[in-house]
Protein backbone atom coordinates (compact mmCIF):
# COMPACT_ATOMS: atom_id res chain seq x y z
CA UNK A 1 0.00 0.00 0.00
CA UNK A 2 1.63 3.21 -1.09
CA UNK A 3 1.62 6.45 0.81
CA UNK A 4 -0.64 8.07 -1.76
CA UNK A 5 -3.46 5.55 -1.40
CA UNK A 6 -3.28 5.68 2.39
CA UNK A 7 -3.53 9.48 2.30
CA UNK A 8 -6.45 9.17 -0.10
CA UNK A 9 -8.17 6.63 2.16
CA UNK A 10 -7.59 8.90 5.15
CA UNK A 11 -9.27 11.83 3.38
CA UNK A 12 -12.18 9.59 2.37
CA UNK A 13 -12.44 8.44 5.98
CA UNK A 14 -12.56 12.00 7.35
CA UNK A 15 -15.30 12.90 4.85
CA UNK A 16 -17.27 9.70 5.42
CA UNK A 17 -17.47 10.16 9.20
CA UNK A 18 -18.47 13.79 8.74
CA UNK A 19 -21.14 12.92 6.20
CA UNK A 20 -22.60 9.97 8.10
CA UNK A 21 -22.67 11.43 11.64
CA UNK A 22 -25.91 13.47 11.37
CA UNK A 23 -27.45 10.59 9.44
CA UNK A 24 -26.77 8.19 12.34
CA UNK A 25 -28.35 10.58 14.85
CA UNK A 26 -31.34 11.09 12.57
CA UNK A 27 -31.65 7.34 12.09
CA UNK A 28 -31.66 6.68 15.86
CA UNK A 29 -34.33 9.35 16.34
CA UNK A 30 -36.38 7.92 13.50
CA UNK A 31 -36.24 4.34 14.87
CA UNK A 32 -37.15 5.61 18.33
CA UNK A 33 -40.14 7.47 16.91
CA UNK A 34 -41.27 4.37 15.02
CA UNK A 35 -40.97 2.27 18.19
CA UNK A 36 -43.23 4.77 19.93
CA UNK A 37 -45.70 4.46 17.03
CA UNK A 38 -45.01 7.99 15.83
CA UNK A 39 -44.05 8.85 12.29
CA UNK A 40 -40.93 10.74 13.34
CA UNK A 41 -38.90 13.32 11.44
CA UNK A 42 -37.00 12.35 8.32
CA UNK A 43 -33.53 10.89 8.73
CA UNK A 44 -32.23 13.99 6.95
CA UNK A 45 -33.59 16.32 9.63
CA UNK A 46 -30.27 16.69 11.55
CA UNK A 47 -28.56 17.81 8.31
CA UNK A 48 -31.24 20.46 7.84
CA UNK A 49 -30.93 21.53 11.48
CA UNK A 50 -27.19 22.01 11.17
CA UNK A 51 -27.54 23.95 7.89
CA UNK A 52 -30.18 26.18 9.48
CA UNK A 53 -27.99 26.84 12.52
CA UNK A 54 -25.01 27.62 10.29
CA UNK A 55 -27.03 30.33 8.51
CA UNK A 56 -28.18 31.93 11.73
CA UNK A 57 -26.45 34.71 13.59
CA UNK A 58 -24.38 33.70 16.63
CA UNK A 59 -25.48 35.59 19.73
CA UNK A 60 -22.94 35.99 22.49
CA UNK A 61 -23.41 37.02 26.10
CA UNK A 62 -21.78 40.35 27.02
CA UNK A 63 -19.36 38.73 29.43
CA UNK A 64 -18.39 35.83 27.15
CA UNK A 65 -14.61 35.48 26.92
CA UNK A 66 -12.46 34.22 24.04
CA UNK A 67 -12.71 30.76 25.58
CA UNK A 68 -16.44 30.68 24.97
CA UNK A 69 -15.95 31.66 21.33
CA UNK A 70 -13.12 29.26 20.53
CA UNK A 71 -14.44 26.20 22.36
CA UNK A 72 -16.83 25.05 19.58
CA UNK A 73 -13.96 25.04 17.08
CA UNK A 74 -11.56 23.26 19.44
CA UNK A 75 -14.16 20.69 20.37
CA UNK A 76 -15.29 20.01 16.82
CA UNK A 77 -11.70 19.67 15.58
CA UNK A 78 -10.66 17.32 18.39
CA UNK A 79 -13.65 15.05 17.94
CA UNK A 80 -13.47 15.08 14.15
CA UNK A 81 -9.80 14.16 14.34
CA UNK A 82 -10.57 11.40 16.86
CA UNK A 83 -13.33 10.04 14.62
CA UNK A 84 -10.94 10.15 11.68
CA UNK A 85 -8.37 8.07 13.56
CA UNK A 86 -10.60 5.05 14.06
CA UNK A 87 -10.36 2.55 11.22
CA UNK A 88 -13.91 2.29 9.95
CA UNK A 89 -13.72 0.67 6.53
CA UNK A 90 -9.98 0.13 6.02
CA UNK A 91 -7.03 -0.34 8.37
CA UNK A 92 -4.65 1.25 5.86
CA UNK A 93 -5.03 4.90 6.85
CA UNK A 94 -2.29 7.51 6.70
CA UNK A 95 -2.84 8.38 10.35
CA UNK A 96 -2.88 4.71 11.42
CA UNK A 97 0.53 4.88 13.17
CA UNK A 98 -0.81 7.68 15.39
CA UNK A 99 -4.22 6.07 15.86
CA UNK A 100 -3.55 5.01 19.40
CA UNK A 101 -6.36 4.26 21.84
CA UNK A 102 -4.78 6.38 24.56
CA UNK A 103 -4.38 9.32 22.16
CA UNK A 104 -8.04 8.90 21.27
CA UNK A 105 -9.07 9.12 24.92
CA UNK A 106 -6.86 12.20 25.34
CA UNK A 107 -8.54 13.91 22.36
CA UNK A 108 -12.00 13.19 23.73
CA UNK A 109 -10.90 14.30 27.19
CA UNK A 110 -9.59 17.64 25.97
CA UNK A 111 -12.78 18.28 24.02
CA UNK A 112 -14.78 17.65 27.16
CA UNK A 113 -12.45 19.81 29.26
CA UNK A 114 -12.98 22.84 27.01
CA UNK A 115 -16.71 22.31 26.80
CA UNK A 116 -16.98 22.16 30.59
CA UNK A 117 -14.95 25.37 30.89
CA UNK A 118 -17.17 27.07 28.30
CA UNK A 119 -20.25 25.92 30.21
CA UNK A 120 -19.02 27.84 33.25
CA UNK A 121 -17.66 30.80 31.28
CA UNK A 122 -20.79 32.92 31.02
CA UNK A 123 -21.66 32.35 34.64
CA UNK A 124 -25.23 31.07 34.35
CA UNK A 125 -26.27 28.52 36.92
CA UNK A 126 -27.45 26.01 34.31
CA UNK A 127 -24.05 25.95 32.65
CA UNK A 128 -22.37 25.41 36.00
CA UNK A 129 -24.66 22.51 36.90
CA UNK A 130 -24.07 20.94 33.50
CA UNK A 131 -20.31 21.29 33.76
CA UNK A 132 -20.10 19.87 37.25
CA UNK A 133 -22.24 16.88 36.31
CA UNK A 134 -20.30 16.32 33.13
CA UNK A 135 -17.10 16.23 35.14
CA UNK A 136 -18.63 13.81 37.63
CA UNK A 137 -19.57 11.48 34.77
CA UNK A 138 -16.18 11.91 33.10
CA UNK A 139 -14.27 11.14 36.29
CA UNK A 140 -15.90 7.70 36.35
CA UNK A 141 -16.21 7.02 32.63
CA UNK A 142 -12.60 7.73 31.73
CA UNK A 143 -10.99 5.19 34.09
CA UNK A 144 -13.48 2.58 32.90
CA UNK A 145 -12.57 3.28 29.31
CA UNK A 146 -8.85 3.14 30.13
CA UNK A 147 -9.34 -0.25 31.82
CA UNK A 148 -11.08 -1.51 28.68
CA UNK A 149 -8.14 -0.25 26.64
CA UNK A 150 -5.70 -2.02 28.96
CA UNK A 151 -7.55 -5.35 28.71
CA UNK A 152 -7.60 -5.16 24.93
CA UNK A 153 -3.99 -3.98 24.83
CA UNK A 154 -2.79 -6.86 27.04
CA UNK A 155 -4.55 -9.33 24.77
CA UNK A 156 -3.37 -7.84 21.49
CA UNK A 157 -0.08 -6.45 22.81
CA UNK A 158 -0.67 -3.12 21.10
CA UNK A 159 -2.76 -0.01 21.64
CA UNK A 160 -2.81 0.84 17.96
CA UNK A 161 -6.32 0.61 16.60
CA UNK A 162 -5.29 -0.64 13.17
CA UNK A 163 -3.26 -3.48 14.73
CA UNK A 164 -6.12 -4.36 17.08
CA UNK A 165 -8.56 -4.55 14.18
CA UNK A 166 -6.16 -6.68 12.12
CA UNK A 167 -5.54 -8.98 15.09
CA UNK A 168 -9.24 -9.43 15.80
CA UNK A 169 -9.93 -10.12 12.13
CA UNK A 170 -7.18 -12.73 11.94
CA UNK A 171 -9.23 -14.99 14.23
CA UNK A 172 -6.31 -15.63 16.58
CA UNK A 173 -8.51 -14.88 19.53
CA UNK A 174 -11.69 -16.75 20.35
CA UNK A 175 -14.56 -15.90 22.62
CA UNK A 176 -13.13 -14.46 25.78
CA UNK A 177 -14.61 -13.51 29.14
CA UNK A 178 -12.33 -10.50 29.20
CA UNK A 179 -13.50 -9.28 25.81
CA UNK A 180 -17.15 -9.80 26.72
CA UNK A 181 -16.72 -7.84 29.95
CA UNK A 182 -14.76 -5.14 28.12
CA UNK A 183 -17.52 -4.87 25.51
CA UNK A 184 -20.25 -4.44 28.14
CA UNK A 185 -18.15 -1.89 29.97
CA UNK A 186 -17.39 0.04 26.78
CA UNK A 187 -21.07 0.11 25.83
CA UNK A 188 -21.93 1.51 29.27
CA UNK A 189 -19.24 4.16 28.93
CA UNK A 190 -20.46 5.02 25.42
CA UNK A 191 -24.01 5.48 26.69
CA UNK A 192 -22.83 7.80 29.44
CA UNK A 193 -20.44 9.75 27.22
CA UNK A 194 -23.01 10.36 24.53
CA UNK A 195 -25.61 11.55 27.04
CA UNK A 196 -28.03 8.79 26.06
CA UNK A 197 -31.05 7.75 28.08
CA UNK A 198 -30.28 6.03 31.33
CA UNK A 199 -27.73 8.73 32.09
CA UNK A 200 -29.02 11.83 30.31
CA UNK A 201 -31.91 12.52 27.98
CA UNK A 202 -30.83 13.76 24.54
CA UNK A 203 -34.35 14.86 23.59
CA UNK A 204 -35.09 17.38 26.33
CA UNK A 205 -34.02 20.96 26.67
CA UNK A 206 -35.63 22.16 29.85
CA UNK A 207 -35.25 19.64 32.55
CA UNK A 208 -33.33 19.96 35.75
CA UNK A 209 -31.65 16.61 35.24
CA UNK A 210 -30.03 17.37 31.91
CA UNK A 211 -26.26 17.35 31.61
CA UNK A 212 -25.04 17.94 28.10
CA UNK A 213 -27.81 20.30 27.02
CA UNK A 214 -27.32 22.40 30.15
CA UNK A 215 -23.73 23.12 29.20
CA UNK A 216 -24.49 24.25 25.67
CA UNK A 217 -27.57 26.27 26.57
CA UNK A 218 -25.82 29.59 25.90
CA UNK A 219 -24.65 28.71 22.41
CA UNK A 220 -26.39 29.75 19.22
CA UNK A 221 -25.88 29.99 15.49
CA UNK A 222 -22.73 28.51 13.99
CA UNK A 223 -21.28 27.77 17.43
CA UNK A 224 -24.25 25.61 18.29
CA UNK A 225 -24.05 23.97 14.87
CA UNK A 226 -20.44 22.99 15.56
CA UNK A 227 -21.26 21.64 19.01
CA UNK A 228 -24.24 19.67 17.75
CA UNK A 229 -22.12 18.35 14.92
CA UNK A 230 -19.40 17.37 17.38
CA UNK A 231 -21.82 15.42 19.57
CA UNK A 232 -23.21 13.64 16.50
CA UNK A 233 -19.65 12.78 15.49
CA UNK A 234 -19.03 11.50 19.00
CA UNK A 235 -21.95 9.09 18.74
CA UNK A 236 -20.61 7.82 15.44
CA UNK A 237 -17.13 7.63 16.94
CA UNK A 238 -18.22 5.32 19.74
CA UNK A 239 -20.24 3.15 17.37
CA UNK A 240 -17.22 2.92 15.06
CA UNK A 241 -14.87 2.22 17.98
CA UNK A 242 -16.99 -0.66 19.27
CA UNK A 243 -17.31 -1.95 15.72
CA UNK A 244 -13.57 -1.63 15.11
CA UNK A 245 -12.47 -3.44 18.28
CA UNK A 246 -15.22 -6.03 18.76
CA UNK A 247 -16.67 -6.58 15.29
CA UNK A 248 -14.03 -5.61 12.71
CA UNK A 249 -15.27 -8.04 10.06
CA UNK A 250 -15.61 -6.72 6.58
CA UNK A 251 -12.92 -4.10 6.97
CA UNK A 252 -10.33 -3.86 4.19
CA UNK A 253 -7.04 -5.21 5.54
CA UNK A 254 -3.48 -4.70 4.30
CA UNK A 255 -3.03 -5.06 0.55
CA UNK A 256 -6.73 -4.85 -0.23
CA UNK A 257 -8.00 -3.73 -3.62
CA UNK A 258 -10.63 -1.09 -4.29
CA UNK A 259 -13.47 -3.64 -4.29
CA UNK A 260 -12.55 -4.59 -0.72
CA UNK A 261 -12.57 -0.93 0.26
CA UNK A 262 -16.05 -0.46 -1.16
CA UNK A 263 -17.20 -3.62 0.61
CA UNK A 264 -15.68 -2.20 3.81
CA UNK A 265 -17.65 1.01 3.36
CA UNK A 266 -20.88 -0.90 2.83
CA UNK A 267 -20.35 -3.06 5.91
CA UNK A 268 -19.50 0.05 7.94
CA UNK A 269 -22.82 1.64 7.02
CA UNK A 270 -24.53 -1.65 7.87
CA UNK A 271 -22.79 -1.80 11.27
CA UNK A 272 -23.86 1.77 12.02
CA UNK A 273 -27.43 0.81 11.13
CA UNK A 274 -27.34 -2.19 13.51
CA UNK A 275 -25.80 -0.04 16.26
CA UNK A 276 -28.47 2.62 15.73
CA UNK A 277 -31.33 0.12 15.95
CA UNK A 278 -29.87 -1.47 19.10
CA UNK A 279 -29.40 1.93 20.73
CA UNK A 280 -32.94 3.00 19.88
CA UNK A 281 -34.45 -0.24 21.24
CA UNK A 282 -32.38 0.04 24.41
CA UNK A 283 -33.34 3.66 24.95
CA UNK A 284 -37.02 2.99 24.42
CA UNK A 285 -37.10 0.08 26.82
CA UNK A 286 -35.37 1.75 29.75
CA UNK A 287 -36.15 4.69 32.02
CA UNK A 288 -33.76 7.49 32.85
CA UNK A 289 -31.99 7.07 36.15
CA UNK A 290 -31.45 9.68 38.81
CA UNK A 291 -28.23 11.67 38.47
CA UNK A 292 -26.94 10.28 41.74
CA UNK A 293 -27.27 6.74 40.45
CA UNK A 294 -25.01 7.49 37.50
CA UNK A 295 -22.08 6.92 39.84
CA UNK A 296 -23.26 3.39 40.50
CA UNK A 297 -23.88 2.76 36.81
CA UNK A 298 -20.43 3.92 35.77
CA UNK A 299 -18.82 2.37 38.85
CA UNK A 300 -20.32 -0.88 37.59
CA UNK A 301 -18.72 -0.25 34.19
CA UNK A 302 -15.36 0.38 35.86
CA UNK A 303 -15.61 -2.78 37.96
CA UNK A 304 -16.63 -4.91 34.98
CA UNK A 305 -13.66 -3.68 32.98
CA UNK A 306 -11.41 -4.34 35.98
CA UNK A 307 -12.83 -7.84 36.21
CA UNK A 308 -12.11 -8.30 32.51
CA UNK A 309 -8.47 -7.35 33.06
CA UNK A 310 -8.25 -9.75 36.03
CA UNK A 311 -9.70 -12.63 34.05
CA UNK A 312 -7.06 -12.21 31.37
CA UNK A 313 -4.63 -13.88 33.73
CA UNK A 314 -6.84 -16.91 34.34
CA UNK A 315 -7.73 -17.49 30.72
CA UNK A 316 -5.64 -19.53 28.41
CA UNK A 317 -3.09 -18.14 26.02
CA UNK A 318 -2.13 -14.73 27.32
Amino acid sequence: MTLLTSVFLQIVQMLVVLALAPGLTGFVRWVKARLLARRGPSILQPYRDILRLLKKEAVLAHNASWLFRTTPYIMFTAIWLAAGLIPTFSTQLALAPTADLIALIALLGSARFFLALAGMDVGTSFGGIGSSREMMIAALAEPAMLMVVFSVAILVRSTSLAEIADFMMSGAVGLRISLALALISLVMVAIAENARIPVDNPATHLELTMVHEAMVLEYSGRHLALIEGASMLKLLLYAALIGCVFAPWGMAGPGADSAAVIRGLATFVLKLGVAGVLLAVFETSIAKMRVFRVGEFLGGALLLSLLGAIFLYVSRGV
Partner: protein
Amino acid sequence: MHDLGYDAAHLLGAVVLLMSFALLYQRRLFALLHVFTAQALALSAAAAWQGYIQHAPHLYVTALLTLGLKAIVMPVALHRIVVKLNIHRTIEPALSVGLTMLAGVSLVTLSILLVMPVTESASALTREDLALSLSVVLLGLLMMITRRNAVSQVVGFMSIENGLILAAVGVAGMPLIVEMSIAFSVMVAFIVFGIFLFHIRERFDTLDMQKIESFRGESH
Protein backbone atom coordinates in the same frame (compact mmCIF):
# COMPACT_ATOMS: atom_id res chain seq x y z
CA MET B 1 -5.54 -22.20 18.28
CA HIS B 2 -8.88 -22.08 20.01
CA ASP B 3 -11.66 -24.62 20.13
CA LEU B 4 -15.35 -23.95 20.33
CA GLY B 5 -15.89 -26.31 23.28
CA TYR B 6 -13.58 -24.31 25.51
CA ASP B 7 -14.82 -20.94 24.26
CA ALA B 8 -18.49 -21.66 24.80
CA ALA B 9 -17.99 -23.27 28.24
CA HIS B 10 -15.88 -20.30 29.26
CA LEU B 11 -18.45 -17.78 28.07
CA LEU B 12 -21.43 -19.53 29.68
CA GLY B 13 -19.55 -19.62 33.00
CA ALA B 14 -18.85 -15.91 32.61
CA VAL B 15 -22.55 -15.22 32.01
CA VAL B 16 -23.38 -16.99 35.29
CA LEU B 17 -20.81 -14.83 37.10
CA LEU B 18 -22.08 -11.68 35.41
CA MET B 19 -25.62 -12.50 36.53
CA SER B 20 -24.30 -12.77 40.11
CA PHE B 21 -23.07 -9.20 39.77
CA ALA B 22 -26.40 -8.18 38.28
CA LEU B 23 -28.11 -9.70 41.34
CA LEU B 24 -25.98 -7.50 43.57
CA TYR B 25 -26.88 -4.44 41.48
CA GLN B 26 -30.68 -4.90 41.57
CA ARG B 27 -32.87 -2.85 43.85
CA ARG B 28 -36.29 -4.23 42.94
CA LEU B 29 -37.54 -7.61 44.05
CA PHE B 30 -39.09 -8.58 40.72
CA ALA B 31 -36.04 -7.49 38.76
CA LEU B 32 -34.01 -9.61 41.16
CA LEU B 33 -36.15 -12.64 40.38
CA HIS B 34 -35.81 -12.01 36.64
CA VAL B 35 -32.03 -11.84 36.91
CA PHE B 36 -32.06 -15.01 38.96
CA THR B 37 -34.06 -16.73 36.23
CA ALA B 38 -31.48 -15.57 33.70
CA GLN B 39 -28.71 -17.00 35.87
CA ALA B 40 -30.48 -20.33 36.12
CA LEU B 41 -30.94 -20.38 32.34
CA ALA B 42 -27.23 -19.69 31.82
CA LEU B 43 -26.34 -22.42 34.32
CA SER B 44 -28.61 -24.89 32.64
CA ALA B 45 -27.06 -24.06 29.25
CA ALA B 46 -23.59 -24.46 30.79
CA ALA B 47 -24.53 -27.88 32.21
CA ALA B 48 -25.98 -29.04 28.91
CA TRP B 49 -22.90 -27.83 27.04
CA GLN B 50 -20.60 -29.63 29.47
CA GLY B 51 -22.68 -32.76 28.98
CA TYR B 52 -22.18 -32.39 25.24
CA ILE B 53 -18.41 -31.84 25.28
CA GLN B 54 -17.72 -34.41 28.02
CA HIS B 55 -20.10 -36.94 26.42
CA ALA B 56 -21.77 -37.32 29.82
CA PRO B 57 -25.51 -37.83 29.37
CA HIS B 58 -26.28 -37.52 33.09
CA LEU B 59 -25.34 -33.85 32.88
CA TYR B 60 -28.37 -33.32 30.67
CA VAL B 61 -30.47 -34.43 33.65
CA THR B 62 -28.77 -31.77 35.77
CA ALA B 63 -29.44 -29.22 33.04
CA LEU B 64 -33.11 -30.18 32.88
CA LEU B 65 -33.45 -30.09 36.68
CA THR B 66 -31.88 -26.65 36.77
CA LEU B 67 -34.10 -25.47 33.97
CA GLY B 68 -37.28 -26.82 35.50
CA LEU B 69 -36.75 -26.06 39.16
CA LYS B 70 -34.58 -22.95 39.21
CA ALA B 71 -35.62 -21.18 36.03
CA ILE B 72 -39.35 -21.92 36.18
CA VAL B 73 -40.69 -23.28 39.48
CA MET B 74 -38.67 -21.24 41.98
CA PRO B 75 -39.04 -17.82 40.36
CA VAL B 76 -42.76 -18.36 39.81
CA ALA B 77 -43.21 -19.54 43.40
CA LEU B 78 -41.24 -16.64 44.83
CA HIS B 79 -43.11 -14.24 42.57
CA ARG B 80 -46.41 -15.52 43.94
CA ILE B 81 -45.19 -15.34 47.51
CA VAL B 82 -44.12 -11.74 47.04
CA VAL B 83 -47.47 -10.80 45.52
CA LYS B 84 -49.53 -12.81 48.00
CA LEU B 85 -47.80 -11.64 51.14
CA ASN B 86 -47.54 -8.11 49.84
CA ILE B 87 -43.86 -7.88 50.67
CA HIS B 88 -42.23 -4.49 50.25
CA ARG B 89 -40.92 -4.48 46.68
CA THR B 90 -37.76 -2.46 47.12
CA ILE B 91 -34.68 -4.04 48.57
CA GLU B 92 -32.98 -2.25 51.42
CA PRO B 93 -29.32 -3.13 51.15
CA ALA B 94 -27.35 -3.10 54.39
CA LEU B 95 -24.39 -1.84 52.37
CA SER B 96 -24.58 0.66 49.48
CA VAL B 97 -24.62 -0.81 45.99
CA GLY B 98 -21.29 0.76 45.03
CA LEU B 99 -19.52 -0.70 48.04
CA THR B 100 -21.15 -4.08 47.46
CA MET B 101 -19.92 -4.15 43.88
CA LEU B 102 -16.44 -3.21 45.06
CA ALA B 103 -16.53 -6.00 47.62
CA GLY B 104 -17.74 -8.33 44.86
CA VAL B 105 -14.79 -7.58 42.60
CA SER B 106 -12.42 -8.07 45.55
CA LEU B 107 -14.02 -11.46 46.21
CA VAL B 108 -13.57 -12.46 42.58
CA THR B 109 -9.92 -11.44 42.76
CA LEU B 110 -9.58 -13.40 45.99
CA SER B 111 -11.05 -16.53 44.46
CA ILE B 112 -8.75 -16.25 41.45
CA LEU B 113 -5.72 -15.82 43.70
CA LEU B 114 -6.89 -18.83 45.70
CA VAL B 115 -7.57 -21.11 42.76
CA MET B 116 -4.53 -20.25 40.63
CA PRO B 117 -1.75 -21.78 42.81
CA VAL B 118 -3.80 -24.87 43.71
CA THR B 119 -4.61 -25.80 40.13
CA GLU B 120 -1.17 -25.23 38.64
CA SER B 121 -1.22 -28.53 36.77
CA ALA B 122 -4.91 -28.61 35.84
CA SER B 123 -6.21 -27.68 32.41
CA ALA B 124 -7.18 -24.08 31.71
CA LEU B 125 -10.84 -25.03 31.53
CA THR B 126 -10.90 -26.63 34.99
CA ARG B 127 -8.92 -23.79 36.51
CA GLU B 128 -11.18 -21.15 35.06
CA ASP B 129 -14.30 -23.08 35.93
CA LEU B 130 -13.22 -23.38 39.55
CA ALA B 131 -12.33 -19.68 39.73
CA LEU B 132 -15.70 -18.73 38.25
CA SER B 133 -17.75 -20.98 40.47
CA LEU B 134 -15.90 -20.01 43.64
CA SER B 135 -16.60 -16.38 42.72
CA VAL B 136 -20.30 -17.13 42.23
CA VAL B 137 -20.42 -18.85 45.65
CA LEU B 138 -18.69 -15.95 47.38
CA LEU B 139 -20.93 -13.40 45.64
CA GLY B 140 -23.96 -15.36 46.80
CA LEU B 141 -22.67 -15.21 50.37
CA LEU B 142 -22.06 -11.49 49.98
CA MET B 143 -25.60 -11.08 48.75
CA MET B 144 -26.98 -12.91 51.79
CA ILE B 145 -24.94 -10.68 54.08
CA THR B 146 -25.83 -7.37 52.47
CA ARG B 147 -29.59 -7.85 52.01
CA ARG B 148 -32.13 -7.46 54.77
CA ASN B 149 -35.09 -8.81 52.84
CA ALA B 150 -35.77 -12.53 53.34
CA VAL B 151 -36.68 -13.21 49.71
CA SER B 152 -33.46 -11.69 48.43
CA GLN B 153 -31.56 -13.79 50.97
CA VAL B 154 -33.19 -16.88 49.54
CA VAL B 155 -32.16 -15.74 46.07
CA GLY B 156 -28.61 -15.27 47.39
CA PHE B 157 -28.66 -18.78 48.82
CA MET B 158 -29.88 -20.24 45.55
CA SER B 159 -27.13 -18.42 43.66
CA ILE B 160 -24.59 -20.05 46.02
CA GLU B 161 -26.06 -23.36 45.00
CA ASN B 162 -25.78 -22.32 41.35
CA GLY B 163 -22.07 -21.73 41.92
CA LEU B 164 -21.64 -25.21 43.44
CA ILE B 165 -23.42 -26.84 40.52
CA LEU B 166 -21.30 -24.86 38.08
CA ALA B 167 -18.18 -26.24 39.77
CA ALA B 168 -19.50 -29.80 39.86
CA VAL B 169 -20.56 -29.71 36.24
CA GLY B 170 -17.24 -28.38 34.97
CA VAL B 171 -15.04 -31.06 36.54
CA ALA B 172 -14.94 -34.13 34.34
CA GLY B 173 -15.85 -37.40 36.01
CA MET B 174 -17.48 -35.96 39.08
CA PRO B 175 -19.82 -38.61 40.51
CA LEU B 176 -23.28 -38.05 41.97
CA ILE B 177 -23.87 -34.65 40.37
CA VAL B 178 -27.48 -35.42 39.66
CA GLU B 179 -28.14 -36.68 43.17
CA MET B 180 -26.38 -33.65 44.60
CA SER B 181 -28.44 -31.20 42.58
CA ILE B 182 -31.68 -32.94 43.59
CA ALA B 183 -30.67 -32.84 47.26
CA PHE B 184 -29.85 -29.17 47.04
CA SER B 185 -33.09 -28.36 45.30
CA VAL B 186 -35.07 -30.11 48.02
CA MET B 187 -33.16 -28.15 50.63
CA VAL B 188 -33.84 -24.87 48.87
CA ALA B 189 -37.49 -25.78 48.56
CA PHE B 190 -37.60 -26.31 52.31
CA ILE B 191 -35.97 -22.97 52.95
CA VAL B 192 -38.46 -21.21 50.69
CA PHE B 193 -41.27 -23.05 52.39
CA GLY B 194 -39.91 -22.07 55.79
CA ILE B 195 -39.81 -18.44 54.81
CA PHE B 196 -43.35 -18.69 53.49
CA LEU B 197 -44.55 -19.98 56.85
CA PHE B 198 -42.47 -17.46 58.69
CA HIS B 199 -44.09 -14.65 56.76
CA ILE B 200 -47.57 -16.03 57.33
CA ARG B 201 -46.86 -16.06 61.05
CA GLU B 202 -45.43 -12.57 60.93
CA ARG B 203 -48.50 -11.39 59.08
CA PHE B 204 -50.87 -13.00 61.49
CA ASP B 205 -48.98 -11.39 64.33
CA THR B 206 -49.40 -7.96 62.89
CA LEU B 207 -52.95 -8.53 61.67
CA ASP B 208 -54.19 -9.71 65.04
CA MET B 209 -57.21 -7.54 65.65
CA GLN B 210 -56.87 -7.59 69.40
CA LYS B 211 -53.34 -6.30 69.16
CA ILE B 212 -54.39 -3.55 66.80
CA GLU B 213 -57.19 -2.60 69.12
CA SER B 214 -54.85 -2.58 72.11
CA PHE B 215 -52.68 -0.22 70.07
CA ARG B 216 -55.60 2.13 69.78
CA GLY B 217 -56.24 1.82 73.47
CA GLU B 218 -59.80 0.52 73.03
CA SER B 219 -59.51 -2.80 74.83
CA HIS B 220 -58.44 -2.70 78.41
